[in-house]
């Protein structure tokens, strides 16, 4: 397969098409809009369904309907739009139908701006809608990985009848890189056996997220938690660099993870025994590998384009076995490798013990270097 230069947003769209996307429902929002625009031409051309919805609320509930037919469906948005989808996501999860959602994150809170960010980590990985749910969240760091994970997302969504989120940021959405697109998969129009797609001679079916009887709901919750346990066992994905002998470990995902790679390489060149853990599945999180690293490492540095949202998870897993440092940029700012290099140096030279509050130290630094106030 020949490589093509392709933009992240478009790559995900075309990868979805090639994975047999039957329907797409979305709403324009920067920096995701090219994905929708691309599909507004591509889907009708293939005789597939494309609807520009009235809102993200509309879009996610169209996805909900389409997902109830069991056929491949997706939406895409960016941070504020994803907030509007929280209720719908909870419903889809509660109904156990498969759907894929792309979040191309931007700076927040509120209207914020359209610059790249990773500030939806907590929202998508832990929070978001009401009720007990765990989405599968995949965070690509390159256009190729975005393409590969798109196919994967549909597979996982169907395998577990759940919602899979591809979590990217504005950089990855806008960036072009050479990448290989997968072969064109024919669309599967065969509805699975839980789906509504009536035909003669079978019992009626219904799909709902209501269980007005609490014990019934609880049994469902237990089953869903068990499913989540299984996902946690099977579906962890991460990329490790120079981890074998690492005395120090940088942890970063997506764009921030690949930027950190540059800094880690530089540090290695300087002779620092340092590695990089780039979680690809943010949920389920690569807990086990991090747990092992916590036995071996003298220090961790978490880098993010947010206020330390993944940091909380790393701190919890490392559990005071080593200090966890933090370096983040917020509000649509992207760190340069040099900043991370500096943070690495500070970690290596630091005498902080495992009880270090990495966020407090970082915030102090931010106040000093960048200041407060808007």
């Amino acid at each position: 397969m020949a490589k093509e230069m392709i933009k992240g947003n478009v790559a995900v769209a075309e990868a979805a098409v090639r994975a047999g996307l039957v329907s797409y429902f979305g709403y324009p929002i920067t920096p995701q809009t090219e994905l929708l625009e691309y599909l507004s031409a591509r889907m009708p051309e293939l005789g597939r369904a494309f609807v520009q919805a009235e809102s993200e609320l509309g879009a996610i509930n169209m996805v909900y309907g389409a997902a109830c037919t069991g056929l491949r469906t997706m939406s895409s948005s960016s941070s504020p739009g994803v907030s509007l989808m929280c209720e719908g996501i909870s419903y889809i999860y509660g109904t156990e139908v498969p759907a894929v959602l792309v979040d191309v994150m931007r700076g927040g809170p509120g209207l914020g701006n359209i610059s790249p960010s990773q500030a939806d980590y907590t929202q998508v990985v832990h929070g978001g809608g009401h009720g007990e749910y765990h989405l599968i969240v995949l965070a690509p760091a390159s256009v190729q990985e975005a393409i590969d994970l798109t196919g994967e997302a549909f597979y996982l969504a169907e395998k577990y009848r759940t919602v899979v989120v591809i979590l990217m940021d504005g950089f990855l959405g806008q960036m072009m890189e050479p990448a290989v697109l997968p072969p064109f998969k024919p669309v599967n129009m065969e509805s699975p056996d839980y789906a509504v797609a009536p035909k003669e001679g079978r019992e009626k079916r219904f799909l709902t997220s209501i269980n007005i009887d609490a014990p019934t709901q609880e049994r469902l919750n237990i089953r869903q938690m068990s499913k989540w346990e299984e996902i946690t066992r099977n579906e962890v994905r991460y990329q490790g660099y120079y981890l074998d002998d690492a005395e120090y470990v940088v942890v970063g995902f997506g764009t921030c993870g690949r930027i950190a790679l540059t800094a880690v390489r530089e540090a290695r060149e300087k002779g620092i025994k340092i590695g990089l853990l780039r979680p690809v599945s943010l949920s389920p999180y690569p807990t086990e590998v991090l747990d092992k690293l916590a036995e071996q490492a003298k220090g961790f540095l978490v880098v993010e384009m947010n206020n330390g949202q993944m940091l909380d998870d790393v701190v919890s897993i490392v559990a005071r076995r080593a200090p966890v440092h933090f370096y983040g940029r917020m509000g649509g700012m992207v760190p340069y490798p040099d900043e991370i290099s500096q943070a690495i140096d500070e970690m290596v030279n630091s005498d902080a013990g495992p009880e270090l509050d990495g966020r407090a130290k970082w915030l102090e630094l931010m106040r000093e270097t960048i200041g407060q106030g808007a």
Partner: protein
Amino acid sequence: MTDTDVKVVYQRPIGLTDVTTHYCPGCTHGVAHRLIAEVLEEMGELRNTIGVAPVGCAVFAYNYFDFDFVEAAHGRAPAMATGIKRTLPDRLVFTYQGDGDLASMGMGETVAAAARGEQITIFFINNTNYGMTGGQMAPTTLPGQKTSSSPLGRDVETQGYPIRTAEMLATLDGASYVVRRSLHDARSIRNAKRAIRTAFEIQKAGLGFSMVEFLSICPTNWGLNAPKSREWLKDHMLPYYPVGDFKVSEEAERVMKEVR
């Protein structure tokens, strides 16, 4: 006389399951259900239809209809129906929504679906209040009407005026068939049934968006028994919400004439 002369004039439609509904005695939600089941049976579409239940008293509609159903989030049934219909364009897809669901929470989705000329049918139960949550004011609550959230009667100055949904949607080019019917007596019910049939036929013919608004009673929250509620509907709702055809596109007109 022999047995062969006995004819069943009416029997429970096979589109309804053998389950008692949770609706209060006399509630015309039941009538609307029955009519939909009858029409789909008569059209031979029971095995080709997907219903979308709302959040509202009809939340368990999927238990009562003997064909495929999904349950929407509050107000989003038109969006959900869109997702289904676009994926399976040859199935009949309808939503069944209350006035809180459709005209308050879901007004945006409703207008958008109508404007898009979405090939779905909406059955809209206007009972002038939020039945399920205990009778709060709805966008359809009449001026002066007492509800649990307009305890002194709806004050139009601060709580606004009722929305005539059918009239409003009729202004949209995408809407093919938008009518209002009542469920308060046998004649109205027969007319309502014809409207249901027309709406489904329009969808089947791919002629665009259709909606039938039903004036419906809520004995429990109105604090009146069923017969009195039907009187109240006639005396108070009909003047504000006249029965009629508010939008019948040219093509829809043709279909309409064929229905009985």
